[in-house]
């Protein structure tokens, strides 16, 4: 408990350091350098996905399969379930009409079961409403709503919002019951921007006349794409003869086909995705809206939105570097003015954090001499202790 006695001293020191630090150095450049270090352009640190299937009933099987296909892709590329909000009516897998209960397929031939045993549906059945969707996006949820149903994003989150269902000119039908309009979504995104709830949003929508849904956005950093122009329908891709209904929509099918070629380390850009759109095959004209998006599309990676990729920097560590690093750490963790080296005390951690950048410049040059001295000191200690024990053993054996 020795650190407790030194607590007032530590607090004053900390305060002084903070004051000096904030007044002297501006934060923006090092922060920008840090976030831009590996990613190049995006500046995001975490990925979220909001996948909404706005239809219910058996004959809208394909919308369920759309959303589940996107879910699988997004999980495969690394976004964890905790960062995915999946909104489905979820009434096809165990539907009485489903010849393959507990399974949802997206291709005829039924090779891949998208439902499986390991999916996490956050909003199911009648919970998929316009109100819940907007509350989810804006974060204005009831305190009783559990964490798994909240969009806990921050200003460094990239969000992939995917919506599918029946839609029309600037509206999307939710569960045959209500509608959400393009203005509602645009306003919700603006609220998110004001509350710093996203870094970038990628909005993808697969409905009839989908491109109208993103026409009303006005917040920055939003990239949007839709499956068909105003006045055009989006068509389903194929039927499965045994399931008996259409199993996937055309646009989503081709997007998923494209995504099958992507893995976590892929450098494929969003421009490549958009270039892969073939209006003849899709049978409608997909659109892209990138005027609100700050970065060039060639520089935006697909994994910036679809994947939960974390940056790792690997550099070869030589023995000397390891010694340097560790010597440096030990020296920084126990500076002279922190009296008792209790490594888990918050004071020590704060001191370390504050001291790191200040001693950055000074620590590098005297390093070499200090390492050699430390290495020799360690050896001296070892041989001294061995000598003492050896001397004792020898003395006892021969003299006594």
């Amino acid at each position, binding site marked *: 408990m020795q650190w407790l006695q030194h607590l007032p001293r530590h607090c004053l020191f900390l305060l002084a350091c903070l004051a000096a630090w904030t007044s002297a150095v501006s934060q923006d450049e090092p922060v920008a350098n840090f976030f831009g270090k590996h990613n190049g352009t995006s500046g995001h640190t975490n990925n979220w996905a909001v996948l909404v299937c706005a239809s219910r009933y058996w004959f809208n099987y394909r919308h369920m399969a759309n959303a589940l296909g996107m879910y699988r892709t997004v999980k495969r590329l690394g976004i964890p379930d905790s960062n995915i909000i999946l909104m489905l009516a979820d009434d096809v897998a165990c539907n009485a009409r489903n010849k393959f209960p507990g399974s949802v397929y997206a291709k005829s031939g039924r090779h891949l079961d998208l439902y499986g045993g390991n999916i996490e549906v956050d909003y199911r059945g009648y919970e998929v409403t316009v109100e819940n969707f907007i509350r989810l996006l804006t974060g204005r949820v009831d305190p009783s709503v559990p964490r798994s149903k909240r969009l806990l994003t921050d200003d460094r989150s990239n969000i992939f919002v995917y919506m599918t269902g029946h839609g029309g000119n600037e509206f999307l039908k939710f569960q045959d019951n209500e509608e959400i309009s393009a203005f509602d979504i645009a306003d919700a995104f603006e609220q998110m921007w004001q509350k710093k709830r996203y870094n970038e949003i990628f909005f993808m929508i697969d409905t009839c006349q989908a491109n109208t849904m993103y026409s009303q956005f006005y917040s920055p950093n939003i990239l949007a794409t839709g499956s068909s122009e105003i006045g055009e329908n989006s068509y389903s891709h194929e039927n499965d003869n045994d399931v008996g209904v259409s199993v996937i929509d055309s646009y989503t099918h081709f997007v998923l086909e494209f995504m099958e070629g992507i893995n976590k380390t892929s450098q494929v850009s969003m421009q490549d995705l958009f270039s892969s759109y073939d209006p003849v095959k899709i049978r409608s004209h997909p659109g892209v809206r990138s005027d609100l998006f700050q970065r060039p599309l060639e520089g935006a990676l697909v994994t910036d939105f679809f994947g939960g990729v974390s940056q790792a920097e690997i550099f070869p560590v030589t023995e000397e570097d*390891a*010694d340097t690093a*560790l010597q440096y750490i030990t020296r920084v963790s126990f500076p002279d003015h922190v009296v008792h080296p209790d490594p888990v005390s918050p004071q020590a951690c704060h001191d370390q954090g504050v001291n790191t950048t200040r001693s950055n410049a000074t620590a590098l040059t005297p390093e070499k001499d200090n390492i050699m001295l430390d290495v020799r000191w360690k050896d001296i*200690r070892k041989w*001294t*202790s061995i000598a*003492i024990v050896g001397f*004792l053993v020898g003395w006892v*054996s021969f003299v*006594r």
Partner: protein
Amino acid sequence: MESLLFLPVLATCRLLLAWVHFPVPDGLLIDHQLTSPLTSYFRLKEGLWLYNHGVDPYVGGILKHSPLFLSLFSTVPPGRVAWALSDIVGAWALVRIWRSRQQLGQSRRDGLVGTAYLLNPYLLLPSLASSTSTFENGAVLLTLMFAAEGRPSPALLALALSTHLSLTTLLLVVPVLMLLATSPTSQLASPRLFGGSYWKVLRYASEFVVYWFVLVCAASIMAGGVWNWMRESWGASLILPDLTPNPGFWWYFFTEMFDHFRPFFLMVFSTHLVIYVMPVCIKFQHDALYAAFLLLGILGAFKPYLTLADPGLFLSMFAVFPEIYPYLRHAIVTALLHAHASLLLPLFHALWVIEGRGNANFYYASSLVMGIAGGAGIVDACFAGMRIAVGSVPEVERGKWEVIQQ
């Protein structure tokens, strides 16, 4: 077993076992029956790595070994040959203890005594698992060997070393001092008051303290501080920071202990070890080696971080006391309890930790069986040691009465 070559051949076989690079399965090295946080090979390697890279190895609670292990194994690499040599030294010490007790240069039973140490699975398996309990056992046996041969200074140095390596060996200080003041020969049949000189005992005690202090200095120089290694290596036995499962009693009790009762029960458990010293030494003041043997048995059942090596040492030492064999009342029960426990312990551990089908209670129940086995061994040895003094029932009376309690 009676030929002169038997022991050397056995020793060579043990060395060969270490030399030949057959792959010891990793599971053995991390097995909780064979190693504990105080003796684990991986923790030792971690401590060595930290030390070699200039980080204080005792920060972080990984390393709980003594700094002398660090200094030894940073000069000599911790290979299996070191463990084999330690095993051979321990076996040799046991043979010499036996010889001093019998006052013989050589005897026909030497081979049996050596085998009892080298081929005891409770001792062989931890040694193959590179658990440093091999070195601790070796140090204890060296202490007893030097004390039995009447060489005080080496005995006290070895005692200081074994106390240094494992704090609970402090229990042996009193019997070793008594042994140095008397003789190792079997006096079990003729109990008498302690015949040694108390003044001598006091001198030996002060010499022990001096050696212990020098070792503490050497360790502190090695570790670069006094309290860091003491808190980790000796403090572990007293504070029990690490509740890794082992065949002992302490860990389970302290997983469910409320924090405000913890100091009290730590004191109770530690005192439990200490209270055996004086009664055993007083009762067996005529035969200090037997008192040491019984206290090793106590340690082998009630130590804080128990491994199989601790009851193993106790069982191996039975070979040195053949005079009690006729008076052991339930030797087969003890043996079966040990067999039972040693089969159930790894089984329930695997069931709990690896498969997830059992839980800690199964494993603790099997460690309780191990405790009963240890207790049965101690009780039987204690009774037999006292029973000898009463003597055998004469032929005439044998059907009529029997000594049950002394």
